[in-house]
């Protein structure tokens, strides 16, 4: 089974702190990590390989530094990696990114399943996975919480919905985006870390992909950021005081006054 996992390197917001005066993020020294949802995608890819054999290829589009995200995936069991990187890809929105990744997957050869994280934590769009599927003209299932079975080239997966989950069958090749519930990602192994250091990772640019320059980067992006601003901080709250029973009564009456209960 040829498994492709698409990942993204994002700023680590885990330890990011908020500047109390301005209410904005403190951005100095924010490290880059593999998008948390993509960790589940990598793990699911490696588990499929362990169940059905084959190989896992990780692909990322980003600056040359995104190389470290690919190596992290190799240390957790991926077999090889491709870095899709070119100055001309910069500024891509989800449409241009979907196009570029689809081109890269096409160029990588035959595939049976493509796995993406549900969304990236920097943009939170959840649009690239389905977009890639559309550009490759293959079906997709978003928000997959479990792969029930893969038999005779048919995959049955559970799609998480607001009120429960749908069970969907899809012929391969197909793309899925996965949610946290699907697995618990393993930590890297030392042997994996050592081999990831040595791995040769090819870098593919617009030329290698044969990409249409009107469809990549800022040029190929219909959406444009007009402005970025910090949201107004929430108005300061009120600290209730007094005995527990008093505080409870005060709270309930205040909530009643506000007509929320």
């Amino acid at each position, binding site marked *: 089974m040829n498994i492709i996992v698409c990942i993204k390197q994002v700023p680590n917001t885990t330890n990011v702190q908020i500047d109390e005066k301005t209410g904005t993020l403190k951005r100095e020294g924010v490290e880059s990590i593999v998008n948390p949802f993509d960790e589940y995608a990598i793990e699911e890819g490696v588990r499929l390989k362990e169940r059905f054999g084959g190989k896992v290829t990780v692909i990322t589009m980003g600056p040359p530094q995104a190389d470290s995200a690919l190596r992290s995936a190799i240390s957790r069991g991926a077999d090889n990696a491709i870095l899709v990187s070119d100055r001309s890809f910069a500024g891509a929105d989800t449409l241009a990114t979907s196009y570029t990744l689809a081109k890269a997957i096409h160029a990588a050869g035959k595939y049976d399943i493509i796995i993406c994280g549900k969304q990236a934590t920097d943009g939170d769009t959840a649009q690239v996975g389905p977009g890639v599927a559309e550009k490759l003209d293959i079906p997709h299932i978003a928000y997959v919480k479990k792969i029930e079975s893969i038999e005779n080239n048919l995959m049955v997966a559970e799609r998480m919905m607001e009120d429960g989950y749908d069970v969907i069958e899809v012929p391969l090749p197909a793309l899925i985006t996965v949610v946290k519930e699907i697995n618990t990602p*393993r*930590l*890297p*192994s*030392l*042997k*994996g*870390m*050592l081999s990831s*250091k040595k791995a040769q990772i090819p870098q593919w640019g617009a030329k290698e992909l044969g990409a249409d320059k009107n469809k990549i980067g800022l040029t190929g992006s219909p959406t444009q950021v007009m402005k970025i601003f910090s949201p107004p901080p929430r108005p300061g709250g009120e600290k209730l005081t007094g005995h527990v029973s008093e505080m409870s009564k005060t709270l309930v009456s205040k909530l009643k006054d506000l007509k929320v209960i």
Partner: protein
Amino acid sequence: MEYFLTEEQQMMVELARKIANEKIKPVREHYDENEEFPWPIVEEFAKSDLCGAYIPQEYGGLGGGVMDLVLIVEELSKVDGAISLALAASALGTFPILLYGNEEQKRKYLPDIASGRKLAAFGLTEPGAGSDATALKTTAKKDGNHYILNGTKCFITNGGDAEIYTIFASTNPAKGARGISCFIVEKGTAGFEFGKKEKKLGIRASSTRELIFNNCKVSAENLLAKEGYGLMIAQATFDSSRPGVAAQALGIAAGALEESINYARTRVQFGQPIASFQAIQHILADMATEVEAARALLYATSKMMDAQHAAGKKERITKESAMSKYYASEVAMRVTTNAVQVFGGYGYIREYPVEKMMRDAKITQIYEGTSQIQKNEIALALIKEAAGKK
């Protein structure tokens, strides 16, 4: 302080830290409270190849040395000095095979230990033979192609949970210390049973049991080196393993220091964080200085041992090994006691981690030779050195 670790060593530290923070931290209270052996964590050690860091590549390890083991144990112990012991005590049980095993013995046992499929344990101490280890009473009587073991070992770390045991027994009681031999005994061998599990002050996630040998028949193939080599094997093992205890002690101390600094910066008394008081600052400064000194001594010793090994030298390094263990364990006790002091009342209750750290630290001054025994070893080495110069 920057110790210029190799790229591989940096990776090991990074990985051990990840396991400690992501896998151990959320469950450490559980294992301490329930005195339960942390099997799921041991599986994490296995999956991540940590168990074989110090074992040569030809036996399935990563080919590192004492320094690599030390780095891993220190990092794990920063979060939990009891769970890290599953790995460190297994190394203690493995060193006799690594140092004195023949090719068949190494091929048979090391790969399972390196992969983490099996844990090892070291069996020397007996009820009547603690610091005076040579007073052991367990016997191994030759019977054709076998030895028959009889006797009881106590306080055996990983006892009951390990699969592979290196056991010291006398093959010739008349010869005293020179009559001691070392055997590999597998769990499940007929006549090899486990006694009660001890209830302890600290390192409660680690199992400590009695090993009972009742006409236990062990193949002569399981004898390490030759009859009578036991004491030498034990001494060489301690030379290699004491840095592991030192690393455990260092880790516990470093963890307590980190907790103390964080707490001091957030705990407010008299209207300001307690870290702004000189009384607290001086305690923190003492703690940090001692931790760094213990680390510098331990790393220097470990690097020297690995360099000697790489150069094929077989000189004893008892003095430095004992110094590292002695100093780090004393530091661990002082630093964790101070950490509890910095935390005040909160340090004394189980909701905060320093109480456990203080309990865990105490054992490092006791096992694998008490602090007093380490000082004996150091002094003996000093006198020998001086005598040798004349």
